[in-house]
């Protein structure tokens, strides 16, 4: 990752984190404010519902007062007291309840038994247990059984018939869907009524979703209200909670459960006020969308500014990096533009100063190396030329001193001296030729050859000669004291090389190896294929070299031999380098020496074709 990218990422993350923190704080605050308002609204509704409930209770009590004072019921009570026959009034409670718009109405005789029942006419003659538990004129909550086996909860009141207090009226209105429909529920608020099932054996009954009714019947997702209902039922106090009807936030409600208790404190029903949070959530969502849009725009603008700043900051550093890279590649003359007075400008100026110093030092070094090279060349030339010149000087001085000798003796001296002079002059010519060859290395003429063929040619040159015509003619027999091993690969090992120069280089290596084994040994020539290269190895079993000797081995004019010029391996390295190949030496004292040449492997067109 580049410096510019890092800067850009850093700026972006910093800005994004800052914007996110601000947005989160704002949204959190907004959410708290909304929820507080929502809870206040729910509490207001709950209070309103409680007032409405009290109002309904008052209505029931008033209606019961009116009925108890009516002439119709007073007459009924008188007849009942006189005759004791309740049968004519079997349907009286039904008609009275219909007229008074009461859902429950029972006329109770002096014995407390039901004379007439509107909600369960067949219960005549049965006692009404609620008569004993009802105390005072206030309305109360009661559960009443119905003929279909179900039960209903209602607001009840008990009244004695005026003029005949032994005969009583027990009536009320049902807490049902109609009751819920009459409640003043604003938009977004639902009122539900849970008809709590009667507990048996002091075991709390399980929640029954079908008993939770709304204005339109059964409440969808009724099971979600089980917790708050159970809490209200258990504690007998209002309970509130946040309920998620679905995983979506907008489908959540603030639910408040208000237990409706009977005269003896038993929870008969629970009124649930569910205020939808949809409007609040949608408002929050709207605000959040605006906040996100502003934040995104801010982040984008910030990124754009960051890019500009990063470019401005990173450009001099990048130029410095590129210049340093060029310096690393040897271009010490590179310069960077130094603008301003900041640290980067100082760095640029320092860099320019450094490269200028390096260039000057390089020139001074080249100059000194050049002088050293000339000195070394002069030393070598002096050394090489001094050896033949000294015999030439002695021979010329002998020849001058021999003029005083007899002619015969002078002739003898003259003949020997001229012979010596000729030999030394030839030696001088050879030395000069070698220097000339090193200075004039020709450019290789590359052609695709089999490297093994070159090895075979070298092997034939230095293999033990067979008896032949020259030996028969009395010439001295050349006998090598080493064994020559050649290890070749079966496949062709093609390389692009100049065969003559490669032959010359390999011959130099073989001659070095022979020189390294004055007492005999084993000379091994091998060639093998590597992945994309061809390895040619020339190894001897001589005395080997120290690491220091190996390090200086390819230095021109360095030699370990008594009569060497130090140019053989330098020439070999030059040839190898001209072929884009490499040469390395593997040696250790007493362990022999191996020269390893790695040439780029050329494609075998013949094998490709096949």
């Amino acid at each position, binding site marked *: 990752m580049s410096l510019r990218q890092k800067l850009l990422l850093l700026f972006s993350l910093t800005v994004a984190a800052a914007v996110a923190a601000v947005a989160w704080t704002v949204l959190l605050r907004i959410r708290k404010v909304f929820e507080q308002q929502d809870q206040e609204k729910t509490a207001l509704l709950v209070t309103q519902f409680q007032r409405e409930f009290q109002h309904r209770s008052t209505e029931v009590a008033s209606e019961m007062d009116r009925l108890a004072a009516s002439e119709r019921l007073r007459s009924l009570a008188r007849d009942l007291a006189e005759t004791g026959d309740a*049968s*004519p009034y079997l349907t009286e409670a039904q008609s009275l309840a219909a007229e008074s718009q009461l859902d429950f109405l029972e006329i109770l005789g002096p014995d407390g038994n039901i004379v007439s029942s509107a909600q369960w*006419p067949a219960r*005549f*003659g049965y006692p009404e247990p609620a008569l004993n538990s009802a105390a005072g004129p206030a309305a109360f909550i009661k559960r009443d059984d119905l*003929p279909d086996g179900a039960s209903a909860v209602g607001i009840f009141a008990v009244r004695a018939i005026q003029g005949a207090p032994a005969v009583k009226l027990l009536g009320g209105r049902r807490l049902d869907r109609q009751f819920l429909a009459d409640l003043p529920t604003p938009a977004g608020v639902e009122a539900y009524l849970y008809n709590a099932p009667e507990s048996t054996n002091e075991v709390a009954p399980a929640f029954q979703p079908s008993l939770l009714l709304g204005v339109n019947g059964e409440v969808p997702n009724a099971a979600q209200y089980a917790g708050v209902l159970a809490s209200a039922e258990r504690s007998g106090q209002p309970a509130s909670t946040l309920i998620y009807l679905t995983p979506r936030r907008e489908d959540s409600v603030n639910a408040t459960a208000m237990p409706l208790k009977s005269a003896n404190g038993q929870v008969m029903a629970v009124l649930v006020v569910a205020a939808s949070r949809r409007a609040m959530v949608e408002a929050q969502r709207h605000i959040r969308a605006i906040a996100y849009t502003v934040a995104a725009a801010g982040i984008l603008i910030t990124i754009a500014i960051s890019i500009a700043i990063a470019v401005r900051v990173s450009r001099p550093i990048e130029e410095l990096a590129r210049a340093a890279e060029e310096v690393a590649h040897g271009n010490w003359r590179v310069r960077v533009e130094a603008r301003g007075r900041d640290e980067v400008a100082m760095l640029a100026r320092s860099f320019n100063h450094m490269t200028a110093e390096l260039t000057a030092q390089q020139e001074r070094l080249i100059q000194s190396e050049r002088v050293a090279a000339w000195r070394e060349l002069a030393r070598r030339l002096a050394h090489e030329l001094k050896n033949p010149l000294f015999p030439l000087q002695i021979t010329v001085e002998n020849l001058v001193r021999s003029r005083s000798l007899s002619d015969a003796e002078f002739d003898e001296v003259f003949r020997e001296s001229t012979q010596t002079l000729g030999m030394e002059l030839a030696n001088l010519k050879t030395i000069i030729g070698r220097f000339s060859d090193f200075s004039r290395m020709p450019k290789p003429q590359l052609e695709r050859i089999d490297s093994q063929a070159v090895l075979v040619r070298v092997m034939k040159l230095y293999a033990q000669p067979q008896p032949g015509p020259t030996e028969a003619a009395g010439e001295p027999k050349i006998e090598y004291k080493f064994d020559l091993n050649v290890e070749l690969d079966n496949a062709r090992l093609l390389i692009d090389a100049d065969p003559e120069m490669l032959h010359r280089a390999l011959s130099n290596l073989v001659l070095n190896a022979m020189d390294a084994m004055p007492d005999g040994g084993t000379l091994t020539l091998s060639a093998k294929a590597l992945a994309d290269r061809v390895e040619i190895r020339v190894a001897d079993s001589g005395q080997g070299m120290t690491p220091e000797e190996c390090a200086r081995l390819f230095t021109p004019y360095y030699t370990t031999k008594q009569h060497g010029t130090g140019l053989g391996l330098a020439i070999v390295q030059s040839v190898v380098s001209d072929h884009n190949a490499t040469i390395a030496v593997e040696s250790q004292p007493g362990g022999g020496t191996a020269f390893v040449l790695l040439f780029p492997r050329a494609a075998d067109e013949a094998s490709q074709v096949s």
Partner: protein
Amino acid sequence: MLFACSLCAGVLQARTRPRYGGTIRVLVDTDPLQAPNGAALRLVFDGLTQPGIDLESDLQPALALRWVSENNSHRWQFWLRPGVVFQDGAPLTAVAVAASLNQSCRMTACPWSGVHISGQSVVFIGESPMPNLPAMLARPEFLIRELPATASSETPLPIGTGPFRVKDGTAATIRLEANEDCWQGRPFADAVEFRLAHANRDLWAELSTGKTDLIEIAPSEIRAARQRQLRVIQAPDANLLALEVNNPNLAPQLRAAIALSVDRAALQQVIFQKQADVSASLLPAALSGYSFLFPTDRDLAGALAQRGGVNPPPLTLAADAGAPMQLAAQRLALNLHDAGFTVKVVPLIPGLNVTQRADLVLRSLPVAGISPGATLEWTLHNLEINAPVAPAEPVVAFLAERDLLAQHTVVPLLFLPRAWVASSRLRDLHLEADGLPDLANASLVEGELARTSVERAP
């Protein structure tokens, strides 16, 4: 003086003489042409026999003049009355009678296995003895009607041989007109109009405004009608209110507990306003003479003892949708609840077979008949109880009924009257033994102000 006395005597005689003409308007609770309780059935149709004018009267010939039985009542031959024609003019033949009876057998089970024609007589063959066949042929289910010759997409008007013919009809109203060619003679009224009553009808308003001359009322309404000084005519013990125990998986002890837990007195005194007769027998006392031998009191302790702590399964109790029947069913459910049963009252769905019915069914069965044997046989037939034909001997009949009721598959509760409220315009009205009004012999008094009086049928 003599002339004045003669004039007064003439006026009085004219007032007592029935007057022809007019339309009798009747408000009924059920389809007037639907057996077995249709009020117009005996006005439009006749049976081969007909009940007497009261329980003490013997069976009377109707479309059949005489009948004989052979082979220990396995074979009965009825000779048809000659000269009788249907209301469309077609003669009454043995073929038409046999076709009508065969059609009736498709609607209800018949005691005979085949009807054959022999000249102007029809012959009934039974696989078992049919000692009560003449009385059973007087029942509304076996009235003779003319079947249409060809099938038609439109429902034809029913045609019989009775004193009135169906003029037209809708879902709410059926109009009859006098049959001038009736073999019994022309009825006094020119027409009879039946209307189905709505739920909240006002008896007083209907009668006082002259909109209606005769209204069918439930037994529970009799007391209130009398208290309002309306003219009530009723046939006592016309229907048996019984609890049918259908669930075959109920143990005999549980069935006995059900029978002991019912509170007949509460039903009789409150729901039916003391207008019914408590009974634990299938036949009314006036017919059998032994019904007092069956105890009617509620024995809740006995019921609990019979149940013996067994937790009975939840039961369903079906009853007609009418208010008294539903109320009675709910009361019975409360009675059974006291005895440890859980009972749910459901509306009665007609036409279901025994296995599809509710566990308990509260039924009202017509029981009025000519003879105890025939009535009991038909009651058992209606209850779909396979029992041998009731013998004529009272002691044996009592023992047979006692054994039958001991199984507690049916629990008799009350005998209910069938009652009507009539306006003062309607005179000479009396009810048949089964509670149907004999409008053929009733007449209207024109111009007389509505005057209410209480009159009990013989």
